[in-house]
């Protein structure tokens, strides 16, 4: 104990102190904006009345949670969240891997660079902007339907159909972010020893064989790690995207936890119930993070914490 104390104080000698002071604003920021609001979770167990505040409101125990599970719409909201978020994770990962492998094979340097820039670009645009583009393209008299109609198909009401809304959400999200996601995979590919490729070529492996037996196994640890780390995101359907694209017609297939909490909790001013749903989501998220961390440790011998 004495030993540890000494090292601790030793760490706070002059040069280190400067660094610690530099972290301080960040820590304070974190405390004020991430940790302090956590006390607000108490509201989930109260009948929160703004005038009385957190300290004055009456405690009602698990009443809001009971009400939450009694609502028929809550199961739908969780299902939608998991299906949409799961679809996004799977397709984003697959497409990013395929794209990284293909891009790595492009030998023309300027082509490679420009393709890369073009596919990264949408990632930096806000959904508020992109949503109006998507709406204009996919509504009944939008470009997509015009093209489909010239092939004798449709028109399809993408934004107002419960069959098509989820594919639209997943598809546009993958379009927006697969390029950016492929960066890590590209890095993983470049770290594979070129000697392995040469050896495979000499042994007579064609391009397909080399991808299958050299590139993919080389990428596997990174793929696994990223997939596992993405697991907690299974409850994040993407509020800003869906909020800007959905309407009551597609609540059935597109209403996710975050949009539901926003509508009920903030706009409906049912603060306690909104908090209860949000807290429930956080608990599931925490369990997923912990199990993902354990799984990551088991498979890749790396972990987050």
């Amino acid at each position, binding site marked *: 104990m004495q030993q540890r*104390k000494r090292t*601790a*104080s030793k760490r*706070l000698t002059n040069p280190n*102190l400067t660094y610690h*002071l530099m972290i*301080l604003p960040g820590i*304070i920021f974190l405390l*004020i904006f991430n940790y302090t609001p956590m006390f607000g979770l108490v509201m989930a167990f109260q009948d929160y*009345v*703004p*005038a*009385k*505040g957190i300290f004055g409101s009456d405690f009602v125990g698990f009443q809001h949670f009971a009400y939450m599970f009694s*609502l*028929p*719409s809550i199961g739908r909201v969780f299902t939608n969240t998991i299906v949409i978020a799961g679809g996004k994770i799977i397709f984003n990962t697959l497409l990013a891997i395929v794209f990284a492998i293909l891009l790595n094979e492009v030998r023309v340097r300027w082509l490679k660079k420009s393709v890369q820039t073009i596919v990264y670009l949408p990632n930096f645009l806000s959904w508020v902007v992109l949503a109006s583009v998507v709406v204009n393209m996919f*509504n*009944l*008299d939008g470009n997509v339907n015009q093209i489909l109609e010239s092939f004798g198909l449709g028109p399809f*009401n993408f*934004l*107002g159909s*419960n069959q098509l809304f989820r594919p639209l959400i997943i598809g546009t999200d993958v379009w927006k972010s697969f390029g950016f996601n492929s960066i890590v995979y590209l890095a993983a590919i470049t770290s594979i020893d070129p000697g392995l490729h040469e050896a495979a070529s000499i042994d007579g492996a064609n391009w397909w064989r080399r991808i299958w037996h050299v590139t993919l196994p080389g990428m596997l640890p990174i793929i696994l790690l990223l997939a596992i780390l993405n697991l907690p995101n299974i409850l994040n359907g993407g509020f800003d995207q869906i909020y800007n694209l959905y*309407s*009551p*017609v*597609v*609540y*059935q297939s597109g209403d996710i936890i975050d949009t539901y909490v926003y*509508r009920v909790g*903030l*706009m*409906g*001013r*049912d*603060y306690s119930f909104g908090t209860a749903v949000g807290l429930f989501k956080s608990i599931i998220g925490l369990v997923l993070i912990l199990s993902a961390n354990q799984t990551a440790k088991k498979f890749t011998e790396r972990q987050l914490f």
Partner: protein
Amino acid sequence: MNTKKGFIYLVLLISLLGLLGCVGESEPEHNEDGQLIVKLGKQTATNPKLPEGDTFEDNAYMRLAEEVLDIELVNEFEANGEDYDRQVALAISSGELPDIMQVSQEEFEELYENDLIADLTDVFEEHASDYIQELYDSYEINPLEDTTFDGRIYGLPAAVNVTPPHMIWIRQDWIDQLQLDFDADGDKLITLEELESLALTFIEEDPGNTGNPVGIPLAHWLNEPGYGGAFTMTTIGSVFGSYPRNWIEDADGNITNGSLTPETKAALAQIKDWFDRGILDPQFGTRSWDDIMALAVNGQTGIVTGAWHMPDWGLSNVKEMHPDVVFDAYTLVDDQNKVNIASQSPGGSIAVVRKDFSNPEILIKLINLFYDTLKNEPNLEEVYPDIYQYQVLDVDGAVRPLNMEILGATSELDHYAEIRDAINGEIEVSDIPDARNQSIATSIMEYSDNPEEASTAAWALYHSRMKGLELGQYLIDHDHFEWVNPVFFGSTPAIEQYYGNLLSMEEEEFIKIVTGVESIDHFDTFVEMWHSQGGDEILAEIEAEIAE
């Protein structure tokens, strides 16, 4: 050593938190001249037509109020529509209210229960002018009853008896252009079949030349309180005797909600049929309020539903885009030639005062000034030249400290009668007692004399009065209204707890039925769900309250 370091960290942390704390320090209550500073929550309008240099905070109305009451008015926040509601929601949740603001009935009840607003009974009785008290008393049900708890008044409601019926505004210039034989007898009362075939003709002929015409657009919420809702189904419901979202008695004398009746099911079946046949907007449900307005402005649709005043704030946008546009107001009748309508409580937006505000009488004085003194001043031009100028310029009333109206029970039609008499030459414009109505009459004459050259403002005033209010007057004169009186208007604990959720469910299930996700028989499932998700408790509480 270690504790010392910890101490430094602690001091730094505290001083930083202290800095953050300073932001929230309260401002002084008086300005340098010793005038009381009154903070308002300001509900604005999109196109107030203010003269250059004037703002929502600094304009002739605000300056007049400041001068007369010897105060300084400051707008704590300014917002419009949903943004205003959001500001109020934030003010309520933070507990920091402006001194005076306007809220909805729902917000009002929440404020009362939270003990955040002042009891205005004494200041109202002491300061409110006789005229203002008479205005409220002129209603069958005094609007103040909605804001009174245990005999004490906590807010002053707007009072307007919006003139029914719910109307259908149709592009008359298109009907003329296509030489249609629509509403042959010219009484503006049309049947569902007539409306249907007109919509089909508009879709087929595309008189707006847009390439993608839309028949009849409706908003996805389909219904809202009152009969003023833009893009709602109220007029279609009236054909079937359906009164959604009203607490009414059913055929057996039991209390129910108008959304649950077989008549509402029939009205929905009609709308669903229109959707199936492409008469209703095929993108019904996904369009926002603005999207639907855009359909009218672009010339994609020539049929929209709404109240008599729709030309003043909505259809005027169509006029801006298409100078030759002419609308006419129609309404749907049933096979008895009747318009079935549920009477509405006259209240609306409610003005409230923060609980600890030192001078609550200021709200009453503002109301006296704007809804009595200015209204009844026969010589506005000389006594209040700035205000007179504003009325000539048709500056929006939203720039006043309070964006609401307090009128007597029949004011809208009384005013219409005066204006009509002046236009028919039966009285002089100067004989009209209200200065605002004088300028409206002048504008309407300007439009009648020369429709092609008239301004958009004159176009709008002509349409809303000589077509909208005219239709309302016609229905009264020829006894076309069939009134149903809702049995209950207020709120109960169960309404507060469950009704919001029930309304969201209603909206969703109705959309499913109309768009064909569920069959029309799903309506019966909806009724069952409604009862089991708190509806029965609401009905029991209403019955108990009526029995009292």
